[in-house]
């Protein structure tokens, strides 16, 4: 009898946790929130805006609540791939332009024509930006915001250094950098990104275009080891030798230092203004501290270069409610939230109604970014699925040239060989 009592106790102890787990599992089916993943909602400058977007959705849709899941920008693509491969819940994700091409071969992105409806998409989103989310004929992503990565300068710092005109050519640009260095040797005249693979490769691509070179040609061939690109690298090395650019500079450091009046020029996307304000630039005087500009050109009259930049939204097959996920995307890019997002962060909306809203059309900063975007080109490495690997190669090789490990010619030859190997 005593053993029977023990056996009963063991059975009861085993059954209780199982029952609790089962009950929890059933409860999860009802209340488990949709997962909206990305990086902007975890960044200090935009986190409150994302909280507000999600909060408005949750108030209006209590049966299909959404929760945010975020990582640093540099980790997001990897985490999305790992999470989706692991079968964990993932409904809507924020993607950088180009990431959909990487994720598409996994077959884990849903066709948004089926989820949201082709008619709604065509009616509300300009065809060109909608096209950027079409991969192999399927609409796997829709635009969330779209602009370009250009350059910004600090007008008050330039004025203090005696630079009266915004530089338009490389000679003028170098003169401005020298003036900034003379004015205050502690500042970084041009915070070229030299760390952080994704940013370095994108910015370098725009400078290669400026010098007339490319990384990849239209046929997909690696053409990075060209005389034009060698001239660009030699120019970077000379800037480094004169302390006009700095090593170990990533985009995040550049933003912080720029807001602290420690940087004259740097490359960024349209969200630069919002970040600067959040980092301490007075909101009502931002024009004096941050202003977009065209990238300087080799010769007067050349086209100023910029790389297209944007965020997209996609739905993963790991969703448990594709219909609600589609509605959530409509909520995020619709007029109300689109305009709210623009007002808070400066990121341009993507739907017709939001683009034509007076708050958007009357904004001077946004207007200048539109001018820059007019010259926008697709970054050449984004077409490859192993874009992270390719960007790392370019970054490592640039660093090797800047620290003097390799000559510009050798660096470009090595980069070409490694890129070809990685693409094959």
């Amino acid at each position, binding site marked *: 009898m005593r053993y029977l009592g023990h056996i009963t106790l063991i059975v009861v102890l085993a059954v209780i946790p199982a029952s609790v787990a089962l009950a929890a599992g059933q409860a999860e089916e009802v209340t488990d929130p949709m997962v909206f993943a990305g990086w902007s909602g975890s960044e200090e400058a935009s986190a409150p805006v994302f909280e507000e977007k999600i909060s408005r959705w949750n108030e209006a849709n209590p049966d299909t609540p959404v929760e945010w899941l975020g990582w640093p920008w540099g980790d997001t693509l*990897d985490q999305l791939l790992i999470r989706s491969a692991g079968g964990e819940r993932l409904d809507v994700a924020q993607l950088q332009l180009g990431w959909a091409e990487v994720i598409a071969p996994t077959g884990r992105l849903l066709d948004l024509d089926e989820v949201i409806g082709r008619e709604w998409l065509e009616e509300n989103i300009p065809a060109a930006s909608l096209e950027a989310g079409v991969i192999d004929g399927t609409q796997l992503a829709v635009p969330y915001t779209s602009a370009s990565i250009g350059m910004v300068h600090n007008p008050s710092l330039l004025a203090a250094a005696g630079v009266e005109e915004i530089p338009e050519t490389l000679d003028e640009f170098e003169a401005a950098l020298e003036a900034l260095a003379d004015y205050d040797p502690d500042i*970084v005249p041009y915070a070229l990104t030299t760390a952080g693979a994704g940013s370095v490769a994108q910015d370098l691509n725009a400078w290669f275009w400026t010098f007339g070179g490319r990384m990849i040609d239209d046929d997909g061939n690696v053409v990075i080891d060209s005389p034009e690109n060698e001239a660009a690298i030699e120019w970077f090395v000379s800037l480094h030798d004169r*302390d006009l650019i700095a090593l*170990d500079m990533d985009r995040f450091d550049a933003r912080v*230092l720029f807001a602290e009046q420690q940087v004259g020029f740097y490359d960024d996307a349209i969200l630069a203004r919002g970040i600067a304000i959040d980092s301490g630039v007075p909101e009502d005087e931002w024009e004096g501290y941050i202003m977009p500009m065209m990238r300087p050109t080799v010769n007067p009259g050349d086209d100023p270069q910029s790389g297209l930049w944007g965020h997209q939204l996609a739905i993963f097959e790991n969703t448990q409610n594709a219909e609600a996920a589609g509605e959530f995307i409509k909520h995020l890019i619709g007029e109300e939230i689109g305009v709210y997002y623009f007002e808070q962060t400066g990121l341009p909306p993507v739907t017709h109604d939001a683009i034509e809203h007076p708050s958007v059309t009357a904004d001077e900063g946004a207007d200048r970014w539109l001018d820059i975007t007019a010259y926008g080109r697709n970054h050449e490495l984004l077409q490859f*699925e192993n874009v992270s*690997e390719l960007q790392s190669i370019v970054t490592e090789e640039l660093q090797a040239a800047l*620290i003097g*490990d390799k000559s510009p010619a050798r660096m470009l030859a090595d980069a070409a060989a490694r890129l070809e190997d990685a693409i094959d």
Partner: protein
Amino acid sequence: MSRSRNGRTGGRQAVRTGLSDAQFGVVLALPAALFFAGIVLYPFANSLIMSVFDRSLIYPGTDFTGLRNFRRVLSDPNFPGVARNTAVFVSGTTAVSFSLGFTWALILNQGYRGSAFLRGLTLCAWIIPGAAIAFLWMWIFHGQYGVLNLVLRRIGLTSRNYTWLGTRQFAVLAVILARGWQAMPWYMLLLLGGLKAINFDQIEAARIDGAGNIRVLRSIVVPGMRQIIGVTLLIGIIMSLQHFDIIWVMTQGGPARATTTFSVEVYRHAFQNYDLGRAAAVGVIWSAILAVFVLLNLRARRNGE
């Protein structure tokens, strides 16, 4: 154990369960064995298998490729550099941690007032997460707002900022110092335990014979601690070989791969290049190197028993 050996308890077990002592022992060890198999053996076996397949995080499916992943890894022109970086990092961090840890253990072993508190305080560096330690050292070495530049400028040693983490030698030195500082308390704790076991009478006798501090250290303390020093160094080397987080946060393996070790290389192949097969191949090579030190450690322990 003694109760089993005398037959009384073991006999009762056998009567109740119908199991012999050996079988009963296996049953008792089974949960731990299953746990070990689940979290250590399975991932390791999986890595071994993955290393001979073309497995990607992007593309579904796997193709058997034999030793192709190993050939690609070993023929990669960057591989010797990765091995060299790993050796420099491991020997550097071990030397820094051991020197600091041993010195600090000798100081704390003097038994002055407050030494117990200091011992506890020292352990804080060991329990702080690696990422937090990495940020702390990044703040020290940062080129624009780093503490080191500020101090050097204040005392007049330089008039300009240096981007320490952007230069090859200093980036390596910075990650070694950061990891060395993190691991120092662990070394201190083990070596302090060894110091406590030294026969104090021997030291007293040597001092009466006129031996100074250095002589006592060389002739009595170090020989008396040979066993614990050996084991500590071996385990320390194994831990440094496995280390990832401080390097990744501080330099991401740069500049120009100067701080790319095996751990960083595995991460890159797996989660930046999405090439799980190649990452597993690097992991297997890395494990083989680790195994040498593990075997040495086991042998040292066996000799010490």
